[in-house]
C-alpha cells in the first residue's frame, strides 16, 4: 500500500482518508458515499477553476495571434479579468422577456449545463481516479451529449425571440447530423479495443504502446470536427454568428444565466478534448513516464495542450455557412467514417482470426490506415467537385487596355 | 427491506396505465404519441426486470428484446410525427377529435 502522501495518484490520499473513516466505525456505506462526494466535488472544482483560467488564456492567446496584447489591466497581467467577468455576470440582472415561458426559460441554462459536467464521470483522470467506471463508458458519453440537443431547443424556444429561435433551429440541425459522425468515429476505437470501458481503452494503448491516433487518423479528424460543432466554436459557431443573427439561442439571457451558457461552452470544449485525449492520445499514460510523473498531471497537460488547437481554430478560421456545414457532414464526413468503420472492422477480423501477432500487425495497420486516410479524403473531395475551377483560388488578370470586358465561366448561384 | 420482482412489475403496470390514459384521453395528436411512448417504456421495464430476476438459460434475451422495442418505437415515432405534420398541413389542426373521417 503506497503511502498517502504519494501524490503520483490522488487516489492514494483519498483511499487513506476512507480507511480512516472506516476505522472510526462508520457503517460501510459512509466511505462509499464519501468517495463519490469527493469525486464530484473534485471534478466540479477542477472544471470551474480551469474554465476561469482558460478564459484568460484564450483571450491572451487569440490576442497574440492578432498581434495585440489582450487583457492586462485587471490584476497583474490581467489575471483577474475572468474573475471580474464572473462578478459582473453575477451582479447583472437576469431579466425574463415578456410572455416568455418562465419555467423553460429558467430551466434552459441548467439543462445545457448539466450534460457538460456529467460527461466527466466516466473519464479516468488518473490511475484509480475515475468517478464512475462504467463498462459502457463510450456510449454513455454520446448519450449525455445527445441531451444537449433538447436543452438547446428549450433555451431557444422559451426566450420568445426571433433570433433565438432561428439560432436554436440551426444548432439542433447541426448537432443531430454531427452526432452520427461522432458515434462512427468512436466506433473505430471500440472495434480495436473490444470494450467500451475507458480504463480498458487506455490499458490497451499502454499494452500495445501505440496511440490510437496513429491507427485511426480519419476517425480523429472526424471527431475533432464533430467536437467543434458540439461546442459550437469557430469554425462552426453558427449558433451565435454575430455577423448574422445576433447571438443565437442565448440572446435573451443576461446575468448569471448567460454565465452558465458561457461556462457550458468551455466545459463542452474540455469534455470533447478529454474524450479525444483518453481515446486517441493514451489518457494519463505517456509510455511509462507515469511511474514518475503523476498520471493526472500528464492527462491535464495533454488536455490543455489539445484544447489549444480549438483556440487556434478560433483565432484563424472564418465561419462556414449553415447549409455548407450540413452538406459537409452528410456528403463528406459520413461516407468517410462509414468507410473507416468498414476498414477497421476488417482489420480487426484479420488480426484476431488470422492470428497475426501484434508487433507486426500494429505498424502494418498504422500504415494502411494512414494511406487510407489521405486517399479517401483527397479522393472524395475531388469526387465531390472540390477541385473544380469553381472552387479553386485564383488571382486577378492584370491588363493595360481600358474598356475591355473579360468573361469568366459563368459562376452559377450555388 | 429488499426489492423484488413484484416491485418493478407494479411500477411497470402503473406506467402502462398512465400511458394508456394519455393515449386515449389526449386531444392533441402528439399527446397521444407521448402516451404510446410511455407504454413502450413500461413494457421495456417489465422485460428488463424479468431478465434480471426470472430463471432462464440465457437471461440477457430480455435486453435484446428491449433493444428491438426501442428501435421499433423510434421508427414508429418518426413516421407518426411525419403524419402529424402532414395532417396539420391538410386539415390545419392536429386535434384528434376533429380527424374522424377516413378520406376527405
Amino acid at each position, binding site marked *: 500500500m503506497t503511502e498517502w502522501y504519494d501524490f503520483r495518484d490522488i487516489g492514494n490520499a483519498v483511499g487513506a482518508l476512507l480507511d480512516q473513516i472506516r476505522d472510526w466505525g462508520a457503517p460501510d456505506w459512509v466511505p462509499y458515499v464519501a468517495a463519490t462526494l469527493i469525486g464530484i466535488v473534485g471534478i466540479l472544482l477542477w472544471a470551474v477553476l480551469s474554465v476561469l483560467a482558460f478564459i484568460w488564456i484564450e483571450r491572451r492567446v487569440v490576442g497574440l495571434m492578432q498581434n495585440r496584447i489582450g487583457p492586462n489591466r485587471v490584476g497583474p497581467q490581467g489575471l483577474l479579468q475572468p474573475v471580474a467577468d464572473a462578478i459582473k455576470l453575477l451582479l447583472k440582472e437576469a431579466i425574463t422577456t415578456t410572455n416568455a415561458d418562465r419555467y423553460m426559460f429558467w430551466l434552459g441554462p441548467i439543462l445545457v449545463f448539466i450534460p457538460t459536467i456529467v460527461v466527466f464521470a466516466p473519464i479516468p483522470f488518473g490511475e484509480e481516479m475515475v468517478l464512475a467506471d462504467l463498462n459502457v463508458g463510450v456510449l454513455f458519453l454520446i448519450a449525455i451529449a445527445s441531451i444537449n440537443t433538447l436543452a438547446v431547443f428549450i433555451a431557444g424556444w422559451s426566450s420568445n425571440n426571433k*433570433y433565438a429561435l432561428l439560432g436554436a433551429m440551426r444548432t439542433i440541425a447541426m448537432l443531430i447530423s454531427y452526432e452520427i459522425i461522432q458515434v462512427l468515429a468512436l466506433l473505430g476505437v471500440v472495434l480495436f479495443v473490444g470494450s467500451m470501458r475507458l480504463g480498458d481503452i487506455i490499458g490497451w494503448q499502454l499494452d500495445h504502446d501505440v496511440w490510437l491516433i496513429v491507427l485511426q487518423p480519419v476517425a480523429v479528424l472526424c471527431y475533432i470536427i464533430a467536437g467543434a460543432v458540439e461546442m459550437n466554436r469557430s469554425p462552426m459557431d453558427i449558433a451565435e454568428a454575430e*455577423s448574422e443573427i445576433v447571438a443565437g439561442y442565448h440572446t435573451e439571457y443576461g446575468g448569471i444565466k448567460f454565465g452558465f451558457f458561457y461556462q457550458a461552452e468551455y466545459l463542452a470544449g474540455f469534455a470533447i478534448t478529454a474524450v479525444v485525449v483518453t481515446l486517441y492520445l493514451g489518457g494519463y499514460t505517456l509510455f511509462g513516464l507515469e511511474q514518475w510523473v503523476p498520471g493526472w498531471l500528464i492527462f491535464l497537460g495533454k488536455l490543455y495542450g489539445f484544447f489549444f488547437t480549438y483556440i487556434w481554430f478560433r483565432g*484563424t478560421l472564418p*465561419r462556414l455557412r449553415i447549409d455548407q456545414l450540413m452538406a459537409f457532414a452528410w456528403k463528406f464526413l459520413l461516407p468517410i467514417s462509414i468507410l473507416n468503420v468498414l476498414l477497421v472492422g476488417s482489420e480487426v477480423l484479420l488480426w484476431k482470426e488470422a492470428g497475426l501477432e501484434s508487433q507486426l500487425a500494429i505498424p502494418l495497420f498504422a500504415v494502411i490506415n494512414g494511406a487510407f486516410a489521405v486517399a479517401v479524403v483527397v479522393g472524395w473531395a475531388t469526387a465531390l467537385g472540390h477541385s473544380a475551377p469553381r472552387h479553386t483560388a485564383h488571382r486577378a488578370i492584370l491588363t493595360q487596355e*481600358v474598356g475591355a470586358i473579360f468573361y469568366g*465561366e459563368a459562376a452559377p448561384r450555388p | 427491506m429488499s426489492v423484488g420482482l413484484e416491485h418493478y412489475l407494479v411500477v411497470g403496470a402503473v406506467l402502462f396505465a398512465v400511458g394508456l390514459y394519455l393515449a386515449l384521453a389526449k386531444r392533441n395528436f402528439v399527446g397521444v404519441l407521448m402516451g404510446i411512448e410511455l407504454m413502450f417504456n413500461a413494457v421495456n421495464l417489465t422485460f428488463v426486470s424479468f431478465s434480471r430476476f426470472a430463471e432462464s438459460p440465457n437471461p440477457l434475451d430480455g435486453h435484446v428484446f428491449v433493444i428491438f422495442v426501442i428501435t421499433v418505437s423510434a421508427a414508429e415515432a418518426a413516421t407518426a410525427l411525419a403524419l402529424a405534420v402532414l395532417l396539420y398541413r391538410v386539415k390545419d389542426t392536429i386535434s384528434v377529435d376533429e380527424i374522424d373521417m377516413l378520406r376527405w
Partner: protein
Amino acid sequence: MTLQTEPFVVNIGPQHPSTHGVFRLRLTLDGERIVDADMVMGYLHRSMEKLAEERTYTQNIPFTDRTDYIAAMTGNLAYVMAVEKLCGIEVPDRALWLRTMMAELQRFASHCIAIGIFANDCGAWQTPVMHMFRDREKILDLFEMACGARLTLNYMRIGGVSRDIPPEFIPAVRKLLKDLPKRVDEYEDLLLSNEIIVARSRGVGALTPEQAIAHSVSGPMLRASGVAWDVRTADPYAAYGKVDFDIAVGTNGDVYDRFVVRLAEMRQSLRIVEQCVEMMPAGPVHAAFAGASVQPIGNPVGPLAIRPPEGEAYARIESPRGELGFYIVSDGSPAPFRFHIRSPSFINLTPLKLMSVGGTVADAIVILGSVDIVVGEVDR
C-alpha cells in the same frame, strides 16, 4: 399544397455589428433563403451639399475629408481638381506627383480595411483585420508626418498641396516600400486559398458585366465583373499619365473576385508609389495665384477668396471605392452655387437587392462586406 409559412422579416438594423456604420438592411426570409431585401439609408445624412453653398471654396475642403472618412486624401483631391478646372489654375509638377503618391498610399490603406472587414464578415474573428490595421497604421503615420492629421487630412489646397513633405518622408516611404509587399504576400497566404473563404464567397452575389454597367457600378466591383475600366487610365489626372501600372480585372464578378481585385490593386498602388518616389521633381508645391480668380472678400484688406468665373465643372478620380466625382456650379461669388458629390458607395449599393435575393442571411452580410461601403459617403 405548399407549406404555409409566413415571411419572416429580419432587420439587419442600423445598430448591427457588421453593417459598416449606420445602415439598415430589411430582409424578408423564407426559412434561410432571402426573398426580398430593401435598404434604409440616411441615418448619417449631414446635408453636406447644402452646407457647402454657404462656405467659400477653401472652407469646403474639410467637408471632403468627412464624406469618405476612410479615404480622405482622394476626397480632397477630387474636390480640389474640380475647382482648379473651374478656375483654370495650373498646378505645379511637384504638387501633381505628391498628390499621386498620397492618393495611392491612401488606396492601400483603404483596401486594408476593405479586405480585413470582408474576412471579418466571413467569420474570421478579427485576426485578418488586426494584421491589416497594423499596416494601415504605418501609412497613417506617414500622413501624420506629411500633414499633421491621420484620418481627416485636409492636406490638399486649390492649386497644389498645403505644405511640402518633410525631408525624412522619402526615406520612411522607401523603408515602407521594402516591407509592404511582403505584407501583401502574407495576406495572400492567409486568405486567398483559405478553403472556407473560397467556399463562402465563390459564386456569391455575382454580377455579370452587363448588369454592372447597367447599374453604373464603378471601382473594384466593376473590375471584378470583368470590365477593365479605371479612371486613372481612362482619363489620367495628376501624374497618372507618366506612371505605368496595370488594371486588376476579375472574371466572375462574385464576392471572391472583388476580394482578389482589391488584393491585386494593393500591389499596383505600391508600384505607383515606388515610381513617384523615384521621379519626384523639385519645385514649388503651390500655384501662385493672380488675376480674376482671386479677389478680396468685401473690403480690399480682408482675406483673399477664390472667386471662380461663372460656369460649371465636373472632375472625377478613381477613389478606392470607385469613380468619385465633384460637380460644382459657380455664380462668380466666393461660395459655390451648387456642390454635388457623385459618391461611388451610394451607386455601388444599387444592385445589392439583385445580388442578395436567393442567397442566405450569411451571404447578405458577406455581399454587403464586399461592396465596401462607407456610410459617410453613402448618406453625405
